């Protein structure tokens, strides 16, 4: 299953250090199928032009290509409003500026969790510096969010920001329950879905969340593009974030008026080729049965985790049903970087470090972990090569 899919990805014909590439750094970024790369090449080779407010043929094609991306996102995730950003991080910063700054008062409470990626912590810390809101962090206990603590933290909360699926542990949080608890408490909810959308299809309206942020590059799309989905009611409370071309209706020296749709939040020439590439990725993904891949990969990951433990590693991922196929682990004595570099010497790509989640690292009591993250093109043979590679490292370092 995985093997035939690799043929769609040009990168898998490459060798790393004389070995076929085994790519297990998917939580950082995924590889791109040929159709995505081709779509961008085609765009630049045939239709490249600036979009909107234009009447020539190329500009029309470029506008259609770019707006097709938004349309596909609206359909796939069931959202009336889709603002295109440069990624998850910009999407969350957009929410903090365009909604947070205009709807929160000094002393208002924003609830975060200890499991958040830095991109869902720092924008709120910066907002707290600007307008003196209070941040409360829901603790992580044994790799799970403490929902009793959430209940307490919700008292008086205006906004709850929670990572759907952890990039460090692969844990899928009970977002449905968190959203309903938050809504009952009268809070708006932002979901960091960077690690979620690659693994499951989410009906944004059905979740009841107000914001959902994610990046194309983690779901077979290009770098430099992402999105913020916004509920109708939250959209109506938002004010422009960045100013410039395309987001205005009229500009005079005395002041400006803004567009009323999503363009209001997309200042400047948009990510046109990236939109075209992401649209191709979304079309490609719509042919894929994510759920069955998800189950297949989770099984692989569980097997890998089990064997790593047998080999003396400490595994932090719990890999419960619904979790992403992410295996975070450490060795009692071998430094994660030495470990990763010795794997790289065998063509195996994994990531090490704090994974932009230092508060979670602190909770786990480590400086960093080694993280092997699996995606739809990975197969049993990748897992085998990985485990054999681990053995060679252990031998060499014995």
């Amino acid at each position, binding site marked *: 299953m995985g093997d035939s899919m690799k043929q769609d990805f040009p990168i898998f014909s490459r060798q790393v250090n004389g070995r076929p590439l085994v790519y297990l750094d998917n939580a950082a970024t995924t590889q791109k199928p040929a159709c995505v790369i081709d779509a961008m090449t085609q765009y630049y080779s045939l239709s490249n032009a600036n979009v*909107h*407010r*234009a*009447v*020539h*043929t190329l*500009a*029309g094609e470029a*506008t*259609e290509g770019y*707006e097709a991306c938004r349309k596909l996102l609206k359909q796939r995730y069931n959202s009336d409003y889709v603002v295109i950003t440069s990624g998850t991080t910009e999407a969350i910063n957009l929410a903090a500026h365009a909604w947070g700054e205009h709807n929160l008062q000094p002393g208002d409470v924003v609830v975060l969790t200890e499991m958040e990626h830095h991109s869902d912590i720092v924008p709120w810390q910066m907002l707290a510096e600007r307008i003196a809101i209070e941040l409360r962090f829901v603790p992580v206990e044994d790799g799970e969010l403490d929902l009793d603590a959430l209940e307490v933290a919700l008292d008086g909360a205006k906004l709850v920001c929670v990572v759907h699926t952890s990039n460090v542990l692969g844990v899928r949080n009970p977002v449905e329950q968190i959203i309903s608890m938050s809504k009952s408490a009268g809070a708006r909810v932002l979901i960091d879905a960077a690690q979620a959308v690659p693994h499951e299809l989410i009906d944004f309206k059905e979740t009841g969340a107000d914001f959902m942020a994610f990046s194309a590059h983690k779901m077979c799309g290009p770098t430099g593009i992402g999105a913020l989905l916004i509920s109708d009611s939250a959209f109506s409370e938002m004010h422009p974030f960045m100013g410039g071309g395309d987001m205005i209706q009229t500009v005079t020296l005395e002041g400006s008026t803004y567009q009323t749709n999503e363009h209001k939040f997309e200042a400047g020439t948009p990510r046109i080729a990236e939109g075209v590439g992401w649209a191709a990725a979304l079309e490609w993904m719509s042919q894929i049965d994510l759920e069955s891949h998800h189950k297949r990969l989770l099984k692989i990951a569980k097997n890998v985790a089990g064997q790593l433990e047998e080999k003396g590693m400490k595994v932090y991922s719990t890999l419960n049903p619904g979790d992403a196929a992410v295996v975070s682990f450490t060795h009692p004595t071998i430094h994660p970087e030495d470990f990763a570099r010795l794997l790289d010497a065998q063509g195996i790509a994994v990531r090490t470090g704090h994974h932009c989640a230092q508060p979670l690292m602190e909770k786990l009591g480590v400086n960093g972990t080694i993280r092997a993250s699996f995606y739809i093109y990975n197969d049993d043979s990748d897992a085998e090569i990985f485990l054999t590679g681990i053995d060679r490292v252990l031998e060499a370092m014995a």
Partner: protein
Amino acid sequence: MNWPDSIQEIIEEFQEIEDQFERLEVLMDFAEEVDELPVEEWNDSNLVRGCQSVAHLEVSIRDELVWLRAAADAKMVQGLQGILSIAVNGASPEIVLQLTPDFAEEAGILVSLTPSRSNGFRTMFDMVQNRVKEAIL
């Protein structure tokens, strides 16, 4: 689909043209079909939103039949209004509500009219149907 004869003729006329320049010339010829809305009557309620050029469009029902008056500064937009007029003028509200805007695409009128413009057509088409709906309710 079964278009009214008037529209069927237009579709065929456009389909025979191979050159885009000529197609646009023919489109502009339809500007003359517009029953012109005088400048004094231009106002916010008959302004066509989403158009890049200035366009106005007024729908009225006389003797239980639909009638358009319109105006645009760009001649091609007025041409689209002309075709729209041919499609709906003198038709019953029921017939007008059954129309779909794809005839413009079928005719190739919108081939290479970029989204902003074809949306302009769509916007005008939707506006006509909405006004008709309001009028007969």
